């Protein structure tokens, strides 16, 4: 069921980076995540047949779509024969055609085309808008037309490039739900390009972190987040409180780290070598009430700190604190928490770092990529 349907292995020089992507995807939504300019869109274009790599192979199911400078005959199936649905970043709806005609573009001379168009429009809730032109539709409606159009040819593989970037939150939530439903119903393989982590979490089954043309890490969302393979991946994922530490003791019951003089106890986890890169999740740092007994979970890693800065976001509060070892630490918690504490810049505060919150990055040698 979850065998690799799509296998990509491509190389291409793209000023200023070099694209060298190796990826596999099954019947799932694989999110290609990374900063802009990392080569995500170029990867989609290569799969779709709109960009010819200099070398490599692309397979979809049993069909070879592309091969160059690899053992065997060179192959380059033209885009029009690849049978891949592509939802472009700015939708790329045909402005001179109505919603109906856009969705029906690929079905122009097919038998049963009209019924199929009507069915797709209905599935996407667009029936009443069939006669409208793209400029008469809202962003969300345009996006639905673009998805319906891409599905018209019954593709096995659907490519989406930043599909919901320009939409407001409510519309985005709904479309993301629709996408997951479509994927499950049709057993599609979906490549979903985004630079927004929220999108990755909302739709993705697996995540591939792409940086400067390479897949830095691929795996389940959970896995990539719990165990980023490198500092770069962690920083692309927006992880806070990265630090280098010396391994004091790596035992079966705990891992003890020395962060420039601050001893931290972590859950047992593999640590490659005497020094490791680790991070502390801001939400796993607890503020201790001076007058209350300590609960078990926060008995470890207590430290006295000084508040440097306090930031308020929609429903999150962030403290930047100075630690005794001279480093700063970011602490995050819901806005309503610790309401009885003053927590003003300059105040001293007692913190406890939960053992679960100290995560050692898994070095690439211990396995860069997890196959589906």
């Amino acid at each position, binding site marked *: 069921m979850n065998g690799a349907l799509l296998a990509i292995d491509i190389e291409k020089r793209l000023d200023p980076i070099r694209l060298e992507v190796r990826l596999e995807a099954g019947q799932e939504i694989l999110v290609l995540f990374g900063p802009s300019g990392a080569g995500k869109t170029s990867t989609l274009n290569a799969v779709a047949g709109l960009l010819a790599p200099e070398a490599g192979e692309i397979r979809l199911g049993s069909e070879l779509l592309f091969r160059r400078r690899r053992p065997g005959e060179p192959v380059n199936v033209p885009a*029009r024969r690849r049978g891949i649905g592509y939802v*472009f970043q700015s939708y*790329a709806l045909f*402005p*001179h055609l109505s919603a109906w005609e856009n969705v029906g573009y690929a079905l122009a001379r097919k038998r049963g085309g009209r019924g199929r168009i009507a069915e797709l429009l209905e599935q996407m809730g667009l029936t009443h808008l069939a*006669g*409208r032109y793209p400029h008469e539709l809202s962003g969300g409606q345009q996006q639905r037309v673009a998805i319906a159009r891409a599905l018209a040819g019954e593709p096995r593989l659907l490519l989406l490039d930043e599909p919901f970037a320009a939409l407001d939150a409510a519309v985005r939530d709904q479309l993301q739900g629709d996408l997951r439903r479509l994927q499950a119903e049709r057993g599609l393989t979906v490549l979903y390009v985004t630079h927004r982590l929220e999108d990755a979490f909302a739709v993705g089954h697996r995540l591939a972190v792409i940086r400067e043309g390479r897949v830095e890490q691929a795996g389940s969302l959970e896995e990539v987040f719990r165990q980023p393979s490198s500092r770069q991946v962690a920083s692309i994922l927006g992880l806070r409180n990265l630090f280098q530490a010396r391994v004091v003791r790596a035992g079966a019951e705990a891992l003890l780290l020395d962060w420039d003089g601050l001893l931290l106890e972590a859950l047992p986890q593999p640590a490659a070598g005497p020094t490791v890169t680790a991070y502390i999740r801001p939400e796993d740092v607890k503020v201790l009430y001076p007058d209350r007994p300590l609960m078990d979970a926060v008995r470890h890693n207590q430290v006295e700190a000084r508040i440097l800065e306090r930031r308020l976001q929609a429903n999150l509060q962030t403290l930047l604190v100075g630690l005794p070892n001279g480093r700063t630490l970011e602490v995050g918690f819901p806005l309503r928490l610790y309401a009885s504490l003053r927590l003003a810049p300059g105040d001293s505060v007692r913190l406890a770092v939960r053992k679960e919150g100290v995560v050692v990055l898994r070095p690439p040698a211990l396995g860069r990529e997890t196959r589906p």
Partner: protein
Amino acid sequence: MSPIRWHPALLSILVTGAAALLILILGLALAVPLARRRFPGRTAVETLIALPLVLPPSVVGYYLLRLLGRGGPLADWLGLRLLFTPAAAVAAATVVGLPLMVQAAQAALSGVDPALENAARTLGSSEAELFFRITLPLARRGILAGWVLGAARALGEFGATLMVAGNIPGRTQTLPLAIYDAVQNRRYDQATRLVLIVTAIAFLALYLIRRLELPVRPGPRREQ
């Protein structure tokens, strides 16, 4: 008042019509590769096509004379005797009208978002199909505007026509030549009428272009 001599007007319409057809076909054939492909010498080709816009009509006429006349490739290789026939007038009108068409069509074709063409490719269109279903409809206004402008220029062609087609009343005398002839012979009534006809046609052509160049709006809504 002398009776109106209709022959120059009819001849002008025929010559302009034939030239307009050639301008459309040749113009698109040149504009499409210029808009879609980068190739060495592209700028040189563009410049060459634009040259009749700035060269004196006598220079354009002279080139055509050598091309169409005795010793030229068309006469010697193909055995065509075109000089001082209406066909020579068509050739002159085409050469001067073509650059306007090519420039406008090239700009309109380049203005079509490549993402739309890519979308059509992923939806199963061949290059020819997407050209007729996407590119051409979207570039339609610019192409039409360039075509009308080129045809209007063809209608007004004088100098080169004089050199290759001559000024034979009832045979190769087009409207602009007939006006010149009328003035030379002090038939001012005749000149005035012909001038008004030409002015009316030119006004209509330019008016049409203005309407075509209005901001792009989709066609009327169609019921499905």
